[in-house]
């Protein structure tokens, strides 16, 4: 790959030098995957931009119609007023709009919401995002830890009654989608058994509380998050358990586990450093990748529990055809997935020395 470096320096032209720089960037693993990530996001966003404009129904026309019928002004005046309130150049062609939007995006400007003019898309995201990250993230971590600890005994006692019971639960947990779990939780313990008042748990915290580091607010936030988190845990847990079981089963057959036992290592050492660590390796990659899906996996669950997170926001944006908000949220979801994959790529080497990437080939 580095054959061009063997050329004599004296004969380097400008294009050679540019090629040099470009190939150095490309040969640097981190830079390369980062570049690919950026290109992926750009492609998805361009696709989204086009898709939004191909969708039937247009919020501008809808508003113009409303103004025309309500106030009886001329079409041009109604058009200008709507265009002004949306802060867009109405004469621009789609291509011009695209470059305008791309330029704004490069400055990290996501524009303003269409349905609530004046509200910046980024501010809305900042308002809803933390709740989703908190609820789904907690659910994901709890299920991951539980799954690892439940999956190992399933492998150690393969074929036992314990294994059968846990395997049945895992398949059930994986097979039933999270929104069904959410509905079940509301209907059975919530409505039929009246264990909790489902109506009081709407939103992300009790009305009238000031967000901040006070006990009352934190307790309320935890209370409101409890059901969605529980739903996520139940719905994801089975996947981790089954992955850990199969991964552990594979590792238990490895020579090095057998040798470790023959070496007279303490059982605890063998289970944690030899079996557990190697079995959990592929699950960490799975975990880092699923972090990307954290934001999108709770859309319906947040609607069911009326938990005001980013999924709820996305749902609302689609319902009212708020295209800028929609684009902003889609960008966020895309970036989350792409960068969590990137993160998984770059961190796997920290866990597994065999794939540690050295700078040079």
């Amino acid at each position: 790959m580095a054959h061009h470096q063997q050329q004599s320096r004296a004969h380097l032209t400008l294009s050679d030098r540019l090629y040099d720089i470009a190939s150095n960037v490309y040969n640097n693993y981190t830079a390369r995957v980062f570049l690919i990530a950026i290109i992926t996001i750009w492609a998805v966003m361009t696709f989204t931009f086009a898709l939004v404009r191909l969708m039937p129904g247009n919020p501008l026309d809808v508003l113009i119609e409303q103004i025309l019928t309500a106030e009886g002004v001329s079409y041009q005046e109604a058009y200008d007023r709507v265009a002004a309130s949306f802060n867009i150049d109405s004469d621009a062609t789609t291509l011009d709009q695209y470059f305008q939007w791309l330029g704004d995006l490069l400055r990290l400007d996501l524009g303003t919401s269409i349905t609530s003019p004046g509200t910046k898309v980024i501010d809305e995201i900042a308002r809803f995002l933390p709740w989703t990250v908190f609820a789904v993230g907690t659910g994901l971590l709890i299920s991951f830890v539980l799954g690892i600890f439940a999956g190992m005994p399933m492998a150690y006692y393969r074929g036992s009654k314990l294994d059968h019971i846990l395997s049945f639960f895992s398949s059930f947990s994986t097979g039933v989608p999270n929104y069904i779990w959410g509905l079940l939780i509301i209907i059975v313990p919530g409505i039929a058994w009246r264990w909790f008042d489902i109506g009081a748990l709407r939103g992300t915290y009790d009305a009238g509380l000031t967000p901040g580091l006070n006990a009352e607010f934190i307790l309320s936030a935890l209370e409101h998050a409890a059901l969605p988190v529980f739903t996520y845990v139940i719905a994801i847990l089975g996947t981790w358990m089954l992955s850990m079981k199969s991964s552990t089963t594979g590792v238990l057959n490895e020579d090095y586990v057998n040798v470790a036992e023959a070496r007279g290592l303490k059982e605890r050492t063998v289970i944690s450093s030899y079996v557990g660590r190697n079995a959990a390796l592929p699950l960490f990659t799975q975990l880092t990748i699923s972090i990307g899906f954290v934001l999108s996996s709770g859309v319906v669950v947040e609607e069911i529990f009326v938990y005001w997170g980013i999924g709820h926001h996305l749902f609302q944006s689609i319902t009212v055809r708020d295209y800028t908000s929609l684009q902003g949220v889609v960008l966020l979801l895309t970036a989350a997935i792409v960068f969590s994959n990137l993160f998984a790529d770059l961190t796997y080497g920290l866990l597994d020395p065999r794939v540690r990437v050295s700078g040079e080939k």
Partner: protein
Amino acid sequence: MSALSPEIVLRVDDLSIVYRTERGDVRATNHVSFELKRGEAMALIGESGSGKTTISLALIRKLPKNAVVTSGQILYQRENRVQDVLGLSRRQLRSFRWNDCAMVFQGAQNAFNPVLKIRKQFEDTARAHGWTDKGAIRKRALSLLELVRLDPERVYDSFPHELSGGMKQRTLLALGVLLNPQVVILDEPTTALDILTQRAIIDVLNDMQRQLLFSIIFISHDLSLAAEMADTVATVYAGEIVEIGGVDEIFYRSLHPYTYGLLTSVPTLEHAQDVLQSIPGSPPNLIAPPSGCKFHPRCSFASDQCQLESPLLQLDDETHLAACWHKDRLLASRKEGV
């Protein structure tokens, strides 16, 4: 139990092992007895599936879960203390393993935990047996790695995947003697290595044994390796030791047709290729083994007696034993033949 003479480090008495399987009991080891002296190297030779590995796994009680020891005892003697491995508690067994008897498994390629450095794996082995001083562990490990002719500093701080196959095998040998065991079991120590690396491993083993004075049991179907390394050779057939004796006695005056068959199935420099023979038939089904002498269906000397009565290992001279009714006929035929 105190009847062991002082030079004996290991005595196996009447060991029988059965694998419980769905198709029936596999009698993998039948009434095996032998003794191993201090500093002695014993080779177990035989075809695949003859039960060599079962015997060696039993020596460190590392048999698969479906194995049952139906008779016998395995006595280790160290500093006049005799212990039966089959009677050890879990905790005693854990400290016995690697400290008194280490086993270098077949295929060192995957013997090391891929995510831990070699250093860590030497350390956790030593720590599990009560060593606490990291410096002392390091010193001992480096001297052993040097003994197996590796670059000690480099290997000690490597991950397993950074070492070649031969280097891993030698590292495993060094790890095997880390705790100064009395007995080291080597299961096919040179299989899967190229011929030059095999040579290096054999030299290293000879060196180590000379310096560290442990006893070796090694399992091999490589007869030239056995000839080179062993003081004593035991031939295993259908889970039984059918012949045992000094290396020269086995190679030049074998008394069991099976041993003789093994020897003549190896090409030598002196004999032309057409003299090379294989043993007809295949190893017996150990779920329903043949009656009498288990080798009789494949044996050219077999008589009615062989079908009915199982021959016992009989002392031929002081150290050489063979379980065959027709030793004399074998000897006579060989004199004619050569």
